[in-house]
């Protein structure tokens, strides 16, 4: 670990905030072993926003939980490394993990009503996060809570501090959840579909705040979502997950302009905005496979119109200028432009 650190300093390359290597999570069920996260690799640099995109059941949320160490029984993180600033989180004991969670790494969940405790006032809930990690007195903690509310754009923070979660609207609750995540100035925030339950105009407000905060504080962000258009507007890099694996990754510019994996390409092509109004939408046939009965080799091959016999063996990861994809028959570079243009 030390040698890694020195070599990074020597070459003056910024070190990633988070590096996930070969992360695998398994669930032992009565009907067999399901692997919702299979050998996931990615890294996030300081100040970078990474979009983690996938459909339901693709393992995107469980990747987030596995990083945080929040996978419940019967799920187990069975292999891989989660290097947070060079330290493997999987090697820490629970006390050490707790010291990092909520302080250096924060998480924002999909449903803000489930995140907040309904019987505690929100000042209690925000101050708790500070006092769990730092020896501060009540006055300081309350002042910090107040400024956190101001930071996320809540009007009249003094009165709002002593309100209960039910007195806030959905968008406001999500802002409070964000305030809680931000208060200790973490290096990394994992956001699990934080705007999916919100309306478009409220979503734009939250995205606006997150963009601003990342730019100002240099916080790294992992934005888990099913919505490619949110990723297009918000993120720097993107990883596309399918059936537990990252099938394609790269910068947003690369992946959305020139997707190479047939799944990514299909996902982009079936968005209504990519089709002529009224014309039939291009579609991906079939549905996502059960995690207990994944096809051998490439998990997407049953739905893929480019699949051949070779797809029964696991595809290699191909890297082309920072954009990597797992496919034997990647989309040709010019084909996609023709079909969309």
């Amino acid at each position: 670990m030390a040698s890694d650190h020195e070599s990074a300093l020597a070459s003056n390359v910024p070190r990633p905030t988070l590096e996930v290597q070969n992360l695998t999570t398994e669930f032992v069920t009565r009907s067999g072993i399901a692997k919702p996260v299979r050998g996931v690799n990615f890294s996030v640099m300081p100040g970078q926003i990474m979009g983690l995109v996938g459909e339901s059941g693709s393992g995107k949320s469980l990747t987030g939980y596995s990083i945080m160490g929040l996978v419940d029984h019967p799920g187990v993180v069975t292999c891989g490394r989660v290097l947070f600033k060079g330290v493997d989180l999987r090697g820490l004991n629970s006390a050490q993990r707790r010291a990092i969670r909520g302080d250096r790494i924060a998480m924002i969940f999909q449903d803000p009503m489930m995140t907040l405790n309904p019987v505690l006032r929100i000042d209690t809930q925000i101050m708790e996060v500070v006092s769990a990690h730092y020896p501060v007195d009540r006055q300081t903690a309350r002042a910090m809570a107040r400024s956190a509310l101001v930071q996320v754009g809540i009007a009249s923070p003094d009165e709002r501090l002593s309100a209960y979660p039910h007195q806030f609207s959905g968008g406001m609750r999500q802002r409070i959840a964000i305030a809680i995540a931000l208060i200790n100035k973490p290096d990394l925030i994992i956001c699990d579909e934080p705007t999916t339950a919100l309306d478009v105009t409220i979503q734009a407000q939250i995205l606006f705040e997150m963009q601003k905060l990342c730019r100002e504080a240099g916080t790294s962000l992992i934005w888990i979502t099913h919505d490619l258009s949110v990723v297009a507007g918000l993120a720097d890099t993107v990883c596309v997950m399918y059936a537990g694996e990252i099938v394609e990754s790269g910068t947003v510019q690369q992946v959305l302009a020139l997707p190479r994996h047939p799944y990514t390409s299909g996902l982009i092509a079936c968005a209504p905005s990519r089709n002529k109004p009224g014309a039939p939408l291009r579609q991906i046939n079939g549905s996502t496979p059960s995690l207990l009965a994944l096809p051998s080799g490439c998990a997407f091959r049953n739905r893929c119109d480019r699949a051949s016999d070779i797809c029964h063996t696991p595809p290699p990861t191909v890297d082309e200028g920072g954009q990597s994809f797992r496919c034997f028959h990647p989309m040709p570079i010019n084909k996609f432009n023709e079909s969309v243009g």
Partner: protein
Amino acid sequence: MNHLPLLELRGVSKRFGTSQDVVARIAKVFGVGLPDHTVYAVDDVNVSVFPGEIVGLVGESGCGKSTLGRMAVGLYGMTAGQRFWKSEQLEKLDPASRRQKQLGMQLIFQDPVSSLNPRMRVRDIVGEAPVVHGMVAAAEKNAYVEELLQRVGLNADALPRYAHQFSGGQCARIGIARALALKPELLVCDEAVAALDVSIQAQVLNLFMALRAELNLTYLFISHDLGVVRHVADRVLIMYLGRIIESAPTPALFSSANHPYTQALLAAAPRLEVRKMVFTPVKGEIPSPLHPPTGCHFHPRCPHAFHRCKVEIPTFREIAPSHFSACHLND
């Protein structure tokens, strides 16, 4: 296009409130009663749906779009207003013939899984209503359901199965088959694709379009997703807090939105084509329909609001051919 609307709603309103008991009503006379908790879910709305067209109804949560859809098909009673089906006022008919007419419009519900009875087999979910209404003899039910399932892209082996044995996309198809079983002319789709994954959503939208061509269907397509509505609809209605504030043919609405709320909505929606979008959000929250703002409902959040917006409800009027908007800025 035929110029007689298939379905017309005139001045339709829906208020939800607790009914007050005798004591509360007497107390109210003396001015000491409890405050009124009335939700103005839909407030004086006019909608016409012409044969063969797809009307998109767009709005954020709590704006009353689902309530309007449910009133249109008769699932909710109206507090005020009139419904006309093929120029015939439904409220004036006796209940039996009203029910008969209402079979011509069917609703597809938001959650494809929970809208199917978990204890019923697919053959009963789809086949129950046509048998009850005497459209199909009980002995021919299986064959009839099988034909419907094929039409929506499912196999006959689905007949004896239960809802939990299907994926979300398949459940959506069963819900569509159930609606089609009564040979409707108008389908009201209440967020019918919102719960589906993108790749499945495309399949179901394609199915809707194919059915429209095959069966000459008319749709009232309720959604919060502007991208979906832009793709399927011929005409779009924008709803905000119980009122329709803009209505225009789809291309006109997306190219030259008139109402400030529509403009904000279009600006706030993330798009695949835009990288590193600079979000310029509208300020404020969606107000509670318990205490809607006076005048124009949008004025507390509107960047162009002036004094008149607070006191006077803007009239919904034509600003360009078949483009209607309710905003004082147009005067």
